[in-house]
């Protein structure tokens, strides 16, 4: 017979579409207790930020010089008071808003731009690759904090400019990871097979490259959430990001550092919050990395 005609023999029964790749990832990650704990922590932090005004027991801006640096457990101040006598618990709850904003906003934007640049460089190769990657190397040569400070300084102080500069700082490393993973995938035979079937570059990237490179880039980018929060607090400390008296964990950590000998536990609280958030994101990213492996 000629294969030009599509056979419609009665043997053929319409087969239900196999469950997609991502539903498999969700199923596997939901069976990972460690990743689920991390996800629970992240959801709790987000809920805390959203409902801060109804959860917080006191006004985070109300200061009283007489109540300065109360220890943890003081009646009315379950987590003590800061150097201006403001309720630590309320400030930590409100601080989640800005800290999560600073931590979470730059990463997805940098993820999209960095992936686009890196995948283009990796797939096209040649001169395009050299042009994109060498430009990125120039940015990569600066230490990230220095670059963020320089960009923030150039753009001017303010929350938006701080977010923009952190985003710009994250694009080069994400693009690098994207480029190296794409170069690896590009050399595999299934890409050649797709090219041999006459598909264009855009279709090949969409169908064959993205699914195989986004996983590792995504995992890498998730790890940047904590770096982003720390960078943001650094910018706040230098007066380039969040300004006092706004509650933000990085800023709180910096202003409380003078009290480290008087009330070390209180002074360490904002750091503990940053630590918990970072760990939660890193553990979730690790769980996703495992779940994204089809063979597991």
């Amino acid at each position, binding site marked *: 017979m000629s*294969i*030009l005609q*599509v056979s419609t023999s009665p043997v053929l029964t319409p087969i239900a579409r196999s469950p997609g790749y991502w539903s498999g990832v969700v199923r596997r990650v939901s069976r990972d207790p460690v990743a689920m704990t991390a996800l629970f922590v992240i959801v709790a932090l987000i809920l805390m930020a959203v409902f801060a005004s109804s959860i917080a027991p006191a006004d985070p801006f109300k200061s009283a010089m007489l109540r300065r640096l109360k220890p943890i457990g003081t009646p009315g101040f379950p987590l003590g008071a800061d150097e201006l006598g403001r309720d630590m618990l309320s400030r930590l709850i409100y601080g989640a808003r800005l800290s999560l904003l600073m931590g979470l906003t730059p990463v997805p934007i940098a993820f999209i731009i960095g992936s686009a640049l890196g995948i283009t460089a990796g797939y096209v190769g040649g001169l395009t690759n050299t042009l994109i990657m060498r430009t990125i190397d120039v940015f990569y040569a600066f230490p990230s904090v220095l670059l963020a400070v320089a960009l923030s300084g150039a753009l001017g102080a303010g929350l938006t400019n701080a977010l923009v500069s952190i985003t710009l700082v994250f694009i080069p490393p994400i693009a690098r990871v994207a480029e190296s993973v794409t170069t690896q995938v590009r050399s595999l035979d299934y890409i*050649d097979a797709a090219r041999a*079937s*006459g*598909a264009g570059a855009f279709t090949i990237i969409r*169908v064959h490259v993205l*699914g195989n490179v986004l996983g590792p880039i995504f995992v890498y980018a998730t790890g940047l959430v904590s770096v982003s929060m720390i960078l943001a607090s650094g910018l706040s400390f230098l007066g380039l990001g969040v300004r006092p008296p706004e509650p933000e964990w990085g800023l709180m950590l910096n202003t409380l550092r003078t009290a480290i000998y008087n009330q070390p536990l209180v002074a360490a609280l904002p750091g503990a919050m940053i630590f918990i958030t970072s760990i939660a994101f890193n553990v979730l990213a690790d769980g996703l990395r495992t779940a994204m492996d089809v063979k597991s």
Partner: protein
Amino acid sequence: MSTAPDTLATDPRDRGGPAQSLLSINGLVKHFPVKGSGFFGRGGVVRAVDGVSFDIRKGETLGVVGESGCGKSTTARLLMHLIKPDHGEIIFDGEKVGIDLPLSEYRRQVQMVFQDSYASLNPRLTIEDSITFGPRIHGMAETAARAKAHDLLARVGLDPSRFAGRYPHELSGGQRQRVNIARALALDPRLLILDEAVSALDKSVEAQVLNLLQDLKADFGLTYMFISHDLNVVRFMVDRVMVMYLGTVAELGEGEAVFASPSHPYTAALLASMPKMDPSERTIEAPLTGDPPNPINPPSGCRFHPRCKLAEPVCATIQPSLTASAPGTSQAACLALVPQSGHTLAARLSLPVPDIESMLMPEASA
């Protein structure tokens, strides 16, 4: 061995009739630049394919054999237009590819099966999605493409209801290679390039896949270019065989003629290196010594002369072209077969051709 099946005559895409070659390759050249060692180091070129010309006839299986690094796979990739040739033209059924015949149309008619069955399937796509990708690119509706994929899976011996939704890692090597064959057939190609397609399979599975390939060839009226380093498999599969050495064609001829009486000393040495089933025919001395020379700086003249037992000074100066020593024999690129070439064997060349095999292998024939 096999004649062109009847399906060829009915193929509406056929242009020149059965006498016209399906694929004609003229003077194909591909050099890969290599970076120099130092900062100002002079980079050389790897002469991966250096002036290769051959035809693939309609309905035949052309075998391509040679040591690793001889340019077999590069030739295959050049034919698929996965890499651009530096020189040379590819003519498909009378139409020059890229000029008379658009590349997209050419790619529907020529497909390839790769050696690594795992790397040639996207691990994130189900078997079914991998097979339907090509037809969908060429505008086939999804339901039709899916029906076709199921049909092809059944044709390559995989139950579509069990395998369509699976992922490549859930299949064995033989099953994956069947999927790759189905994927290649999904575009209704006329020429299938099999680049070491069965080399990575174990022997029993290899035999099954070879039989499958033979059946598919007859059913679909296919033409095969069969690249392999396994001479036994090539002998089983092919109508004609092309022997490559260091980016050039050493010998080209009917399969049985080449295997029975090789004309080129390299072919003779290759055949002598095949393990013998009969202990009394055991090869004592290695038929070929040393590695193939560096293709960055290939030997002058005949590229085989540093390893050839028939080599004479003239071999280092003149590069031989393919010559048939007598009608009906295979063509070989060897000065010993060219009259008046200056080679002592050529001078007293008389028909029939000298028995090169016995001259090379006194121990083997003793």
